[in-house]
């Protein structure tokens, strides 16, 4: 598989992994959709395209819902900081604003309280059992869960790609900063590519 990505054709060794690359959809709840406005709506349309493509190819799709069962699950300082947030707040999963803004189709859904979705979740276990080695990231918000989870995945040795038009931030400048430093230095955190580039590469593999 080869996706026309920047700064190099992705993945680095052309190997998508035994069961195919995994699509990691993060965020995408009602609150984040509202807070990211038009950019968020546009991103979600591309998330849907990616999800359809991965499902059709029979490749793994993982959907992360950020939130807690109860605010008592947050340590006191995390809870106090969350109370200060005017935007991008961690919600209780039962809150209507925490409901997914897209349908997860056949995705494996997991919940996480931290922007780094590996913290305190079963994400690494799911990915290991699924034999996932390559991850394609999309969702909301670019500078929050998307970047933090991708950085941790990169540290863990996953080959990672950020889909630039299938992710969005509450501030366009934040989105642009993350894309730029992701690709810096021959892919500091991984590669970046458009939804069209990902789907074009998938069509060739099919």
């Amino acid at each position, binding site marked *: 598989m080869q996706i026309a990505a920047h700064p190099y054709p992705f993945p680095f060794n052309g190997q998508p992994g035994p069961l195919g690359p995994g699509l990691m959809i993060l965020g995408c709840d009602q609150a984040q959709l509202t807070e990211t406005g038009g950019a968020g709506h546009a991103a979600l349309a591309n998330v849907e395209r990616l999800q359809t493509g991965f499902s059709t190819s029979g490749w793994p799709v993982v959907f992360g819902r950020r939130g807690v069962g109860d605010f008592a699950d947050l340590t006191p300082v995390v809870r106090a900081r969350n109370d200060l947030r005017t935007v991008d707040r961690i919600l209780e999963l039962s809150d209507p604003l925490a409901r997914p803004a897209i349908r997860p189709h056949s995705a494996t859904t997991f919940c996480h309280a931290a922007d*780094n979705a590996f913290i305190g979740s079963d994400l690494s276990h799911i990915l290991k059992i699924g034999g996932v080695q390559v991850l394609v990231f999309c969702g909301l918000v670019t500078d929050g869960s998307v970047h933090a989870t991708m950085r941790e995945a990169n540290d863990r040795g996953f080959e990672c790609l950020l889909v630039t038009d299938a992710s969005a931030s509450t501030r366009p400048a934040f989105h642009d900063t993350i894309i730029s430093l992701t690709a810096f230095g021959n892919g500091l955190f991984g590669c970046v590519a458009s939804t069209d580039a990902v789907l074009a590469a998938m069509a060739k593999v099919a």
Partner: protein
Amino acid sequence: MSQVSGAQKIEASYPWPLCNTLSAPRTALIIIDMQRDFCAPGGWVDQLGEDIANLRAAVAPVARLMDAARKAGLWIVHTREGHRPDLVDLNPNKQWRTRQHGLGIGDQGAQGRILVRGQTGHDIVPECAPLDGEIIVDKPGKGGFFATGLERRLRARGIENLIVCGVTSDCCVQSTFRDAGELGFDPLLVVTATSAVDPDHHAGMMSILSAFGGRWGATADLDAAITGLKALD
């Protein structure tokens, strides 16, 4: 032992620490990756032909902050990014992408093998050298908590608050800072004691970290941090 007033805080993006008062036993200074390979002439970044002026600019502020933290009696932790000599902890894609520059991790450079433990380039610059009793955490990734004993050692000592500085602001510093906040520590990033190769990346990352009240921790400038620490002398 100094008297701690009820309102003892560092002036930051929020009065820090948020849930308790500033005290040496609960606070550590963590200095990230002030290694020759990043911020010294002849190190890896320099050998790649990148301008190290911005990274070098962090050396003096970090040294001042270390001095203030030592006088205040804080626990001091230094991190180094790098790998075992046999490279068993080096992700294949990380080795591959760094080799595309022409000089990858593990390869022989002018100051020894790049980012390999025990080599000169991997070690901390003399201006920021650890003292006896301070610890060094060697890490194979960007986040200081990934595949290290850092969290365990902080918890064992009852550390709740972390003052964070070092390089690079857009990579290992922000990764460690954010994870610290999400793991339940209260981190304070001293923005003028950190820097990146690209100043736009530095500025952009500082905006992200300080937005919306500080999603993962507090930010402050060096003078505010030193003023706060002096009260603990």
